[in-house]
């Protein structure tokens, strides 16, 4: 249980414990619950009337542009983390600070552009 991957082994063990809690709960549930399905009971809920059409209905997706914005900015933000741990180390100082403002300016400019293009509102 030592070394870099050793610490992640603990995480994997805990994940398996989580899966076991879920499976165990469902098993107890299965032992204790009744099971009397009827066609009416298995109908999709739609305010008590018979469902109209199917559930995966076609609808207009709004804010889909946000997905692009998110992907772009999140990829940027990921690069922040390794940089954040060393930017104030001796020998970097002002250089990295200026770089940070360049980085922030890029993100801010991107948001301003999206704002001007009116994709941040109800489209």
């Amino acid at each position, binding site marked *: 249980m030592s070394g870099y991957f050793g610490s992640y082994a603990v995480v994997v063990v805990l994940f398996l*414990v989580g899966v076991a809690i879920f499976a165990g709960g469902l098993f107890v549930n299965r032992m204790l619950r009744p099971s009397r399905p009827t066609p009416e009971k298995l109908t999709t809920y739609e305010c008590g009337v018979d469902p109209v059409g199917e559930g995966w209905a076609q609808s207009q997706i709004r804010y889909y542009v946000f997905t692009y914005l998110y992907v772009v900015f999140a990829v940027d933000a990921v690069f922040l983390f390794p940089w954040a741990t060393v930017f104030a180390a001796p020998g970097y100082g002002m250089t990295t600070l200026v770089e940070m403002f360049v980085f922030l300016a890029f993100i801010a400019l991107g948001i301003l552009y999206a704002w001007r293009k009116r994709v941040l509102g109800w489209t």
Partner: protein
Amino acid sequence: MAEVLDIAVRLVVVVAAFLLLPLIVGQMEHKAMAHMQARLGPMYAGGFHGWAQLLADGVKFVQKEDVIPAAADRWIFAIAPAVALVPYLVVMVVIPVGPGLAAVDLDAGLFFVLAVMGVGVLGAIMAGWASANKYSVLGGIRAAAQLMSYELPLVLAAASVAMAAGTLSLQGIAEQWRWWWLPWQAIGAFVFFVAGLAELRRPPFDMPIAESEIIMGPMTEYAGFRFALFMLAEYAGIVVLSALTTVLFLGGWQGPLLPGPVWTLLKVFALAFVVIWVRVSYPRMREDQLQKFAWTVLVPLALLQLALTGVVRVLTA
């Protein structure tokens, strides 16, 4: 052998905390919300002020029939509660409650936490789509839109703390913390906490589950035990968010007189109380207000905090 035993004890504590703390927060919500609304809340179960109400709920839920609609995508529908719940358990592995008191101290702890917490939201999206119900699909899409918008301010605010501490390890961040971080990182703390609330879909950001219009959204078709797991995931989420805010912005275990773990728990429950308080106080935000708030308020604030953190850190170095 001793090392394996040590880790086993830590994992048992984590699992116990994961199963117990959400119930305490849930009971706290019952009672605090009731008294804020001038009623009593549960009073019967267990005798003393209804303390056993959630245990009684659990006993009821575990005996209820498991109804999966005929139209649903069975497998995805069945495992969605686990996808919503298990990530919060996994996140708890790195949260320190005292110096050296975490199940494991990962170098990239902060990064790990953000990545795994994002997975929890997928549970709601999967549930929404697999239910094959119009309300659920709407709720799932809203949950997805909310994740997209609020993940960015959350990540940026967390990056600000990483810059201040110069490390990604949660242990390291809590150790580096000094009292003057409170005013210095105040904007970041606000952004992180609010964006976290939105990721949990707690009021006033509960548009995806809006019970009065889309009938719990992704959870419309869920009943019995699987529904209970979704509820447990919500409260586990509150515990994890409060604990993370404590560790990142409030100094974790640091405090006078009392031992570290007690301070951590005090801060976590104070923040959990704020979560409940906010739920009682604010009306639900409309979908467009919610999106606008993320992109035009929280993201610029988070960028401002990054600039502030960077300047102060370099000038004082």
